[in-house]
């Protein structure tokens, strides 16, 4: 079975097929940031600590990507193999709103305020035959973990 690799290092970790987003928290004002960065845009202090962000939240807004993005940079299937996907911001309670793909792309099934949880999503296969994955948000109660995930 192909080895699962994250689309890039430092964005999310994978444990037992489940992702966790890697963020920063300002030690001065408590502001959360994603992806990790130094320097707080809120209070301008430069002391941050690494934190893992919440893996559940509520859908703040959304759209559906109905046409294939240009490749590069897109790593997912294009042309006739393209599959529309949802995109949204999910509000992680008391932390931050994170943008991500949504596993649901039917406008009739996407509602602002619905409960969402973080999952992994396959993008494609890289030159070395690895299975490239990114993170996505799925409506709660319709998801599971990806089988055979390497941590």
């Amino acid at each position: 079975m192909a080895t699962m690799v994250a689309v890039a290092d430092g964005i999310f970790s994978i444990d037992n097929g489940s992702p966790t987003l890697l963020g920063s928290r300002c030690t001065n004002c408590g502001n959360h940031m994603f992806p990790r960065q130094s320097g707080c845009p809120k209070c301008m202090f430069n002391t941050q600590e690494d934190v893992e962000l919440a893996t559940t939240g509520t859908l703040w807004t959304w759209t559906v990507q109905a046409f294939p993005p240009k490749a590069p940079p897109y790593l997912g299937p294009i042309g006739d193999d393209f599959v529309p996907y949802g995109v949204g911001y999910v509000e992680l309670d008391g932390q931050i709103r994170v943008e991500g793909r949504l596993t649901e792309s039917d406008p009739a099934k996407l509602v602002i305020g619905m409960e969402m949880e973080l999952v992994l999503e396959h993008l494609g296969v890289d030159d070395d035959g690895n299975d490239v994955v990114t993170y996505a948000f799925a409506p709660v109660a319709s998801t599971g973990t990806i089988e055979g995930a390497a941590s």
Partner: protein
Amino acid sequence: MSNVAIVGIGMHEFGRNDGISGMDQGVVAVRRALADCGQQWSDMQFAVGGSMDGGAADTMVSRVGLTGLPFTNVVNGCATGGTALAQAVNTIESGAADIGMAIGFDKHEPGSFRIKGPRGKDWYGGSGLALTTQFFGMKITRYMHEYGITQASLAKVASKAFRNGALNPMAWRRKPLSEQEVLDSLMLSYPLTQYMFCSPGEGGVAMILCRADKAKEYTDRPIYLQAAAVRTRKFGSFEVLAPSIAIEHDPGPTSAASKAAFEMAGIGPRDIDVAQLQDTEAGAEIMHMAENGFCEHGEQEHMLANGETEINGRLPVNTDGGCLANGEPIGASGLRQVYENVLQLRGDAGERQVPNDPKVAYTHVYGAPGISGVTILSR
């Protein structure tokens, strides 16, 4: 009265212009602006220019004349043209020069903008998130949810743009489209269809600015800059190409630039006779009506139903067809809006001339990663 005047304007037709480079479209605009006020390139004491995909603006001197003038390149996303103008205004207001030019041009490949990530692994673009269209779909989805704007209103805005564009000989898309045709076109980024979006395009605009007290030496119809303000985003604003946003809310750079411009000019939104507002897509025009202070959030629904933003309405908006009918050559787009307002204030807008004898006109440009530029012009 302000300290700076616009005395000459020039434009190269917007659209898909095969066989001519972006910079050459800028050169055409420069020559037309010089002709508009009877000046020579050698009369220009400085220039400020910008382009995203058309090359470094200052290299055009090899074609228009190696006069040795200081020429500053600016790049500021979709607000490039607005920033070039603001820099030109500041140069004259500082006393560093009496007369100079602001220039913008561009030429983009067809389709959505290809947003390049940082070197190395581009997780954002790789994951399919680096599309400006997604932001516009998500911002209007949230706005419709909060303020009760309908998809029918989005279609009304797009249909108005193409109706106005049909009256504009410089516009790209000059075929009127009904609201139903707009709604029935391809869904690109829900709830926005193909004809609700502008397209990256081509074109060039140039304008000559000078000290207000010398304006009559160059033209008998000077247009005065009452304000030119550029602002970037603050913490908590919702902007394009953002992997995350704060839960705290800020009204964004458009509100900030608008407030600053009205303060500079010493007037308010009720004093504006015609407005050009960034309409990257139909929803943006609606949201920007409120962000610029022309109405409360949610009031747009009945304003559009009543035709208040039509050419013959109470507050005509995007009289030249806006980005929707003209396309968006990044470097030139903000200056196109100013060009249109100069025509309207001169009474030279032809078939699309607003009938309210306009005396004060407003432009607003918005771009990544959260920049807005506003100008207020008067006769």
